[in-house]
């Protein structure tokens, strides 16, 4: 067991990574930060709309889309990946609805059938064409965020070195996500909480739905090779559920996402340094840790707060007389 869990050494876990290889590690943490931010922001709306499992399905089924795009276009450019993934995501949504409408198979089973089949197809293609597509099963599973700093050359704009391509891409996607959510805040809000009202206000709920699915696939793809297909699900759902323990207001919940992302990315990075384990899953474990904290201590839906409230509500020791107003 001692081999498995190394003794905790503050110097080794918290100081050495930054002192020895700041340049390398900062990109890993930033990648995690931007990935969790983008996913968490989109995920808020998935959870609100009770579509968490559709997010799960899409994050799995983009895999064959990416692989086919690689094989057809022979390039690992972002454009090809986005197109492939978008196509796969649309196919997933359409297939799920098709099976549901044209047979008596219910939605949950339809989701389960579609995404497992597409994912299986993707895994087979990855293992058949590993040499040609620069992806392997480990990458599909938990991503290779460690490789982020190794991407050379860095993206340059006007002679200024910005950083590794995937980090820059992820940052751009996160910023666009935030901007889109701000611009379309009203439409998203009203169509998530009250589709009927949305219709009467002139917001087309199904356009919002498909736009959200499309953007979800873009976000999933841009962090795919760093965090893999399955961990994305956690990054989509966990920030939203953690926030719902802490606040009742959607703006605050959205604002808490970058903070949670920072804590998870940093916490996960140090956890991985301590335990010598894969970094991306460790970031998700850190997110789970945040959720556990919020579950216990969250002021709105946390267990302690609830218990306190229950105690306050149950039989106060002095009973107010409703007539006289005295105790």
């Amino acid at each position, binding site marked *: 067991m001692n*081999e498995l869990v190394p003794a905790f050494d503050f110097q080794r876990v918290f100081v050495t990574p930054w002192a020895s290889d700041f340049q390398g590690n900062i990109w890993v943490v930033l990648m995690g930060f931007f990935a969790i931010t983008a996913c968490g922001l989109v995920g808020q709306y998935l959870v609100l709309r009770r579509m968490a*499992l559709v997010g799960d399905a899409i994050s799995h089924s983009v895999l064959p889309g990416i692989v086919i795009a690689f094989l057809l276009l022979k390039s690992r450019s972002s454009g090809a990946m986005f197109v492939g993934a978008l196509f796969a995501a649309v196919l997933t949504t359409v297939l799920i609805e098709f099976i549901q409408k044209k047979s008596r198979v219910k939605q*949950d*089973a339809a989701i389960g059938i579609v995404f497992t089949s597409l994912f*299986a197809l993707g895994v087979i293609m990855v293992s058949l064409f590993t040499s040609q597509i620069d992806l392997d099963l480990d990458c599909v599973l*938990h991503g290779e965020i460690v490789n982020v700093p190794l991407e050379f050359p860095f993206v340059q704009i006007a002679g200024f070195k910005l950083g590794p391509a995937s980090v820059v891409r992820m940052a751009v996607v996160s910023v666009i996500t935030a901007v889109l959510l701000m611009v379309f805040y009203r439409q998203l809000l009203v169509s998530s909480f009250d589709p009927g009202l949305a219709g009467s206000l002139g917001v087309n709920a199904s356009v919002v739905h498909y736009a959200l699915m499309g953007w979800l696939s873009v976000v999933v793809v841009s962090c795919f090779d760093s965090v893999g297909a*399955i961990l994305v699900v956690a990054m989509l759902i966990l920030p939203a559920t953690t926030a719902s323990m802490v606040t009742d207001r959607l703006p605050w919940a959205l604002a808490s996402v970058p903070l949670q992302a920072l804590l998870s990315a940093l916490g996960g990075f140090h956890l991985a340094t301590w335990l010598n384990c894969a970094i991306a*899953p460790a970031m998700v474990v850190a997110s789970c840790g945040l*959720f556990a904290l919020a579950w216990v201590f969250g002021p709105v839906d946390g267990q302690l707060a609830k218990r306190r409230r229950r105690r306050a509500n149950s039989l106060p020791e002095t009973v107010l007389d409703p007539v006289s107003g005295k105790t």
Partner: protein
Amino acid sequence: MSPSFQETVSSLLARRLGGDAENRATSVFAFDQAGFVRGTFFLVLLLVMACVPTSAQAARVGDVVETGVVQQAIRFFTLRDPSVRYALLGAVLIGVSTGLLGSFIVVRRMAMAGDALSHAVLPGVALGFLWNMSKDPLAIFVGATLAGLLGTAFVSWITSTTRIKEDAALGMVLAGFFSIGLCLMSMIQGLPTGNKSGINSFIFGQAAAIGPTDLKLMAIVTVGAVLGVALFYRQLLVTSFDPGFARASGLPVRWVHHGLMLFLAFAVVIALQAVGVVLVSALLIIPAATAYLLTDRMHRMLAIAVAAGVAAGVAGSFVSFLAPALPTGPFIVLASASLFGVAFLFSPRQGLLLRWWHQRSRNARVACENTLKAIYHLSEAHGFKGEGALVRELAERRRSTLEEELVRIRSLVAAGWATLSDDRAVVYPTPGGWQRASEIVRNHRLWELYLTHAAQISPDHVHEDAEKIEHVLGEELVRELERRLQFATVDPHGKAIPAIGEIRGTAPSRGDTTIGFRRSGP
């Protein structure tokens, strides 16, 4: 329209409650005892076959080197190698257990709970491996089952103590447990000691790696699942389809649920080696959904799901035998997905193609009947003089071109309801065609009369409705309408309703047919 599962079962339950038709209800619930015994015997036979010690055992299917797919296939299906027997028997056992339990998951709409459970077992696999630093099937079995159950417990704990909805809770637990598992796996990979080989095959599956201990566990779980389902079949059925009734009749609904989840965890864990953590949920869902498309009866659904699961498992282990480097799980999933696709398209009642075909032929029949009706109307306008109808007049009446009308008439001729004169000017309905035309007109007018008479709808509003219903009214319903309308002869628009005698052509005069018609009115 076939009644849905729920309707069938709840109507039977209602009858049971009422106390009558006890026998019919029990016949639905009764487990096919003979089939069960036969199945168990078959299983035991296979088990014995696999466990017979053989002198030369290839350690793994992958060790077998042979060229040519056909030779490989022969070698595979003659079961010469014990390792092939292991893989095949493993696939059969997995198909049986996941098919049985998956069916209940699908009808209970808990498919995603199965998915969450199957991802949540990963940390347990890693911990089981750490138990004595080797791929000990028993330790992994225990660890994975505990982790899976802990995952399900977490889901219900989160949903019951917070306002988080079930889908989000499932997603959290699924990905959270899975990431913990991945962390542990990568830590194990980093260890300097221990036999780490094979641990990764749990993620995407490797049927070729199934060993004798795995097989024993599989056999125990499968026999347990079969016995459990056989013994508690009624309880499972009732709690799945009508939880309210089950609770009211004093069944322990929660315990049945917990028991099912326990066996589900077992089934998932034994399937890990062959299918892998990521895709094992597919094996629970897809064969059961395939069976759901093919039958309305639960016991048949169980049997079909088992068969589909076994077929997919065998196909997957065959691929694993041919290409040992490839993961097995995805092939098993694709095999079962193709079975689902076939059922989706060709299922006798639910299939897309057949339903499309039925709809097409129904539309064609309605089109023919409308043409016949037009011929009748034309003939009626001429006071039923002459035998045929002029195609030109028919086209004018229906406001269509001569060509369109001829196309319609040709399909009428093809159906044997009319003949066309050589110069294509006159269409003559055959006796059968004339009978059908009269029936349609009679249905139409009777229905119009019924609507104005019984439902008090004004006569100028009834035509549209009658246009639709005239094609679907059955013989018995028409009799009933006639009786209620006291065998009226004139419709609300003042036209005569063709009487049964005229239609049949046997033509006894109105008023003295055998089923007692009486002319009503003056």
